[in-house]
Each structure stands twice: as C-alpha cells, then as structure tokens.
C-alpha cells in the first residue's frame, strides 16, 4: 500500500496547488482560460510538454516496445521530436501573435473571423470536440488502471478512475489555466525524471548488465526483430511522420499557444522539446524491450514497466515512480478538460449570446459548471465502455487532427484561402475517419498473426486496402497520408474556385504582421472601407 500512499500524497499536492491558483485568479474568462496571457518561458515549456505527454508516453511506449521492439522510438518519438517543435515554431508563434493582436482565445474563433463565416467554424468545432473527448476519457481510464496496478488491485479500477477525475476536476474548476500550468511544472519535472530514475534503479537491481540481455535478444532469431526494425515496413515508418502534425491542431495545444506572455517563450520550448521527448521515451522503450526477458508472457504489455518496478524497485520508490506515471496521465487530461470547457464557453455559449446576457462572471460560472458536467459524463462513460474503443478513437483523433493542419496553415499563411476550401477539407477528414472506422471493424476478423504479412481486405482491389495487426493501410501507407494530402489539395483547389474573404479581412490578418504586409494605397483603403460596410451586413451568413 505504500506506493498508493505516495501517489495519494502527490494527488493531494495537486489539489492544493489548484486551490492556491483559485485565490490568485480574477473573475473573467481571459484570466480563467488563458491566465491573462501571462505565462513565462520556462513555465510555458513545461506546460506545453505536459499537454502533449499522456499515459502513452510511459505505459503505452514501453508496452509497444515489448510487442514491436526498438522501432517504436523512431516511429513515434524522434519523429515527434522533429515535427512538433517545427509546428510550434512556424504555427504556434503566429497563433500567439493573432491571439495577442485580435484577442482570440480558440482556434474556432480565429477561423470564424478569418473566413467571415460562423457555420464553418461550428463544423470545425464539432469535429474537434468529437475527436478530443475520447482522448479525455482514455486519460481517466489510464489513471484508473495505474492506481489499480500499483496497489495490486486493492484500489478498484472504478475508484482509481474516480480519484483521477476528481483531482483533475478540482484543479481545473478552481484554478483554470493558472492552476493547470502550476501543476504542470510539478508534473513535468516528475515524469522527466522518471525515465532516468527507472533505468538507474532497474540496472542496479538486475542480475547481469543491460548489454547481456540485449545481446541475448539479438542472438535469438525469434526475438531479433525486437532490436531491429525487421517487422516494421518502411512505408509505415515514414507514414507516421505525418501523425505529429496533429499536435498543434489539438485544441488544448493551440489554447496554450495563446496563453504565453511573450512570443520569446517559444524559443526555449522548441529547442528543449526533442531532448525532453528523448528523456522520457528512450528509457521507457529500452526497458520495454528488456522486459521481454525479465517479465515474460505478459497478457497486457502496457503494464511491463509497473511489473519491473514491483520486481526491482524499493516499495517507496515504486510509489514515486507511480506518481510520475500518473503525472503524465493527468498533465494532458487537465488541459483537455480545460480546452473542452474553453471551447464550449467561447465558441458556443458566448458566440450564441450567453456572454451578452450573463456577462463575464456568468461566463466563468458556465465554464466551471461545464467542467463538472463533462468530467462526470466522461467518468461514467470510462466505466461502462471498453477501453479498446477509445484506443481506436484516439488513434483516429491523431490522424484527424493531423489532416486538419492544412486548414490552419492556409488560414495563417495563404491570403487566397476561403471558407469553402476549409469546409471541403473538414468534410474530407470527417469522411475518411468514418471510412477508416468502417474498414477497421470490417477487417477485425482477418487480423494476421505476428510475423505474417498484411491481409487484403477486398481481394478484388488488390493491395489498396490491407490490414496489419493494428492498422488498416492504403497501399502500405497509414490512412493519415491520403487524409493529409487530400485535405491540402482540397483546400487549394476549392479555395481557388471560390470567392475569397473581403479585402478588409485579408488586410486585417496580413498587414498587422510586417513580414506579410503590403503597402496600402488610397484606393485600397477606400475599397476596404466600402467592403467593411458590406461585411458588417453579411457577417454570419454561409
């Protein structure tokens, strides 16, 4: 029970931090959702990193490595370490600037204003929420499983889920964004240290050195694939480099970008991000592979690290390390809950007149009430629905958000983009998500065994649609490939075929940025004023 006690102490600290943040807060939405855009550089980095790290970073990565070997690092970790900082550098900084200049607090608010259209913003909102909520639910499930595993089953799964949901709710309810980022500092340090400590402790306790175990795995033809990428097709490996495009499109990431005090906060973040990913993923994946020799025959490989800690770490240390895992779970869950609340409050409640009727204070009350409701619903759904569904949904969410990145890039960098291009991209993504879901369910009975080649789903179509152990592929590529390229193509083609936004809006978004500004002539100024008058009467129509 000592590990559980340590974790409970950790959770109590989290709850206290949230309540301190409450006392520092002001009763307006900019303070509640964005901490008044006052987040400094180091806190910004720690918080953005916590936003992205989930239970998968520690439990899932080691579990996948147990199943598939070292290739998981290159597949997921080093590709994320390359793509995510680039998207933060190019897209995150521009998002910050737009939020600072025009007061936007969500992506949808920006899209609605940028393309002079409320309905397409609502469509993007609906798709974003549909993809984000399963992610939120799976975080609660991950936390419940960790508490149950480290207590040896003494803490029931339902109780573990309830504890995680309650602590996250209290932190967000009372502290808003300020409470969330303060907790993130503590959490990120915990799980950044986790990997190094776990490796040091286990290497000290393990009979024989690491090299002995790895050499043994490499020498056995049946296990050699674990230390190479023999069973990982190159097209699959390359496809995965598109998945991290999803990161900047996750609502909670975009909202974090709006919250930085200065744009210079992004500098440290983009440089440290790949190193931080390595600090967590490298030891977890290495230990996952090692676990195939020390903890054999696991039915649920996602528990391999916890098993190894129970075997090789002192009890109190296993508790601290368990808290590190919970940190990763809760860090992102807190941001997801806050993001969903922000989106409903700003993009629905305020947009449809709630703020005019109830004022800023009323908006904050709505946001808090919404947090209670959404977490309660997520908790109940987490208990009654099989986890496999959410694992699937989260996988789709990554592809879906990645495929929405051309919409954001067009909004920020391409004057000629139109609302119809954005709608076409959104519908393409939604359609592909439905198709992939259908193909996945259809092909579940034909999953090949480990080591066997992919199976054709429709033999008359040849290798067009295939099923591997975990995924549907399109000519060997993950669905994210046609989704991203199709989304970009539709954005371009449909935009060029449709009417652009007014010159006034284009000037607004491209002339405030000196790098993109055009010299204004008297004629264009008059034209802008005339168009602005027309725009005011046309705002809100599709």
């Amino acid at each position, binding site marked *: 029970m000592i590990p559980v006690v340590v974790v409970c102490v950790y959770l109590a600290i989290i709850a206290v931090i949230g309540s301190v943040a409450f006392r520092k807060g002001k009763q307006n939405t900019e303070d509640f959702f964005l901490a008044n855009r006052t987040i400094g550089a180091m806190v910004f980095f720690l918080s953005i990193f916590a936003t992205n790290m989930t239970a998968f970073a520690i439990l899932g990565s080691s579990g996948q490595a147990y199943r598939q070997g070292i290739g998981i690092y290159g597949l997921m970790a080093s590709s994320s370490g390359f793509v995510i900082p680039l998207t933060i550098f190019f897209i995150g900084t521009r998002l910050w600037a737009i939020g600072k200049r025009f007061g936007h607090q969500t992506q949808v608010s920006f899209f609605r204003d940028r393309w002079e259209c409320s309905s397409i913003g609502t469509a993007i909102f609906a798709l974003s929420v549909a993809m984000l909520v399963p992610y939120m639910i799976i975080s609660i499930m991950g936390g419940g499983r960790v508490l149950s595993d480290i207590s040896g089953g003494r803490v029931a799964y339902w109780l573990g889920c309830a504890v995680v949901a309650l602590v996250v709710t209290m932190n967000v309810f009372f502290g808003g964004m300020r409470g969330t980022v303060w907790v993130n500092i503590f959490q990120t340090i915990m799980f950044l240290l986790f990997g190094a400590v776990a490796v040091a402790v286990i290497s000290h306790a393990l009979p024989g050195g*690491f090299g002995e175990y790895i050499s043994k795995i490499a020498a056995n033809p049946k296990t050699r694939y674990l230390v190479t990428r023999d069973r990982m097709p190159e097209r699959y490996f390359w496809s995965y480099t598109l998945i991290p495009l999803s990161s900047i499109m996750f609502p909670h990431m975009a909202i974090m970008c709006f919250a930085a005090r200065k744009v210079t906060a992004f500098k440290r973040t983009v440089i440290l991000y790949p190193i931080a990913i390595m600090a967590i993923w490298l030891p977890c994946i290495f230990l996952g592979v090692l676990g195939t020799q020390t903890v054999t025959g696991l039915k649920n490989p996602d528990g391999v690290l916890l098993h190894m800690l129970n075997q090789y770490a002192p009890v109190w240390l296993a508790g601290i390390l368990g808290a590190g895992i919970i940190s990763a779970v809760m860090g992102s869950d807190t941001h997801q809950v806050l993001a969903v609340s922000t989106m409903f409050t700003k993009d629905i409640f305020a947009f449809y007149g709630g703020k005019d009727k109830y004022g800023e204070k009323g908006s904050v009350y709505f946001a808090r009430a919404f947090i209670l409701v959404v977490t309660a619903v997520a908790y109940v759904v987490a208990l009654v629905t099989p986890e496999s569904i959410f694992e699937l949904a989260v996988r789709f969410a990554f592809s879906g958000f990645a495929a929405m990145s051309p919409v954001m890039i067009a909004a920020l960098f391409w004057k000629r983009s139109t609302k119809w291009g954005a709608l076409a991209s959104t519908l393409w993504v939604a359609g592909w998500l439905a198709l992939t879901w259908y193909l996945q369910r259809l092909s579940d009975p034909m999953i090949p065994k480990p080591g066997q080649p992919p199976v054709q789903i429709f033999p008359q179509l040849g290798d067009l649609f295939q099923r591997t152990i975990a995924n549907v592929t399109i000519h060997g590529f993950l669905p994210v490939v046609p989704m991203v390229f199709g989304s970009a193509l539709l954005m371009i083609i449909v935009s060029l075929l449709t009417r652009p936004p007014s010159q006034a809006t284009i000037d607004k978004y491209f002339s405030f940025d000196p790098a993109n500004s055009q010299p204004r002539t008297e004629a264009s100024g008059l034209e802008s004023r005339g168009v602005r008058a027309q725009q005011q009467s046309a705002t809100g129509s599709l």
Partner: protein
Amino acid sequence: MVVAVYVLHQDFWNWKKAEPLVFGFLPVGLAYQAGYSILAAVMMAVLVKFDWPAHLETIEPEEHSGDKET
C-alpha cells in the same frame, strides 16, 4: 536544412542491424534515432538563431480587441 534533417529520419541502412551495441547495450538503430533527437534540437537552435520571427515581438493588441466572436 529542415528537409535534409527530415530525410535523415529514414535510416534504412540500420533497418536490419542490431549491432554494434552503442555504449555496450544500445542497439545501433535505437542509438541512431536518439542521436537524431539531439540533431532535431540543434536544428531548432539554428532556426531560432537565424530565422526567428522577431517582428512578432512588437505585436500589440488591436484597439477594442478582447473576446472575439463573429
């Protein structure tokens, strides 16, 4: 530079290799990708130094900006 670093991610020459074990225990494919992560950090440091959008540092709120709803 970014494209070159991206291309280096596909280390096909390490695909079937486990040896040599770097530092005596890291399979070469894993060690390469760990080194790639460090390279990514260096690439970002170069971008921050030479391609930083400094003009964004002077952005000020528009008059009457605040809660944006269209």
